[in-house]
């Protein structure tokens, strides 16, 4: 069984500044994957970044990076140089090949202030 917890229901950030969204997870699998998905208002969910658990190096995609702490089962998302278009719901998710589906956290609503 897998669980994913996002403890911050809402976050806000000033445009051009940096914000970190928290996520903790629990899984009994040794081989698993972690994801951050973004759901803009009234728009489709899209993948932001993903991390394979066996890789120690933190994933980076342009302004988005993760801080993967495997022992602590923590997978936070850092957004640098925040833009107005970053305003959305962000979901952390965990997947493995045993069940072939994703377990999602409850989401964090990110607001970006101009």
């Amino acid at each position, binding site marked *: 069984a897998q669980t994913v917890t996002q403890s911050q229901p809402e976050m806000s950030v000033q445009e051009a500044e940096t914000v970190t969204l928290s996520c903790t997870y629990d899984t009994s699998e040794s081989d698993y994957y972690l994801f951050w998905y973004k759901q803009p208002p009234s728009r489709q969910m899209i993948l932001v970044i993903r991390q394979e658990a066996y890789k120690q190096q933190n994933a980076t995609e342009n302004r988005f990076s993760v801080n993967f702490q495997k022992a602590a089962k923590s997978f936070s998302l850092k957004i640098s140089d925040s833009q107005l278009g970053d305003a959305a719901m962000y979901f952390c998710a965990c997947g493995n*090949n045993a*069940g*072939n*589906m994703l377990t999602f956290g*409850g989401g964090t609503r990110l607001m970006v202030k101009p």
Partner: protein
Amino acid sequence: EAGVTQSPTHLIKTRGQQATLRCSPISGHTSVYWYQQALGLGLQFLLWYDEGEERNRGNFPPRFSGRQFPNYSSELNVNALELEDSALYLCASPNPPGPFSYNEQFFGPGTRLTVL
């Protein structure tokens, strides 16, 4: 290639009725995942279909069912609707195709089901 499509966009039903939601995956891709996103909650895994077969099922009652057609499109049926079934139902198709959790899931726009 076309993305994931879902219909209808909105569906309003009354308690006790049945709802049918439809999804077409990325063209030629064989897997379809269904998720329920209730208000204020994250996505809950409902069903996974691949090659016409149900491969996995989430912790939902049997009145949630579905099927996958030979063209890989899928239907989600919800019988005996209850008020708490009101939610956004999302369909997803992995890309590249294949039942591997590492693959990016492409999501459809969802069907907003309201049960009165």
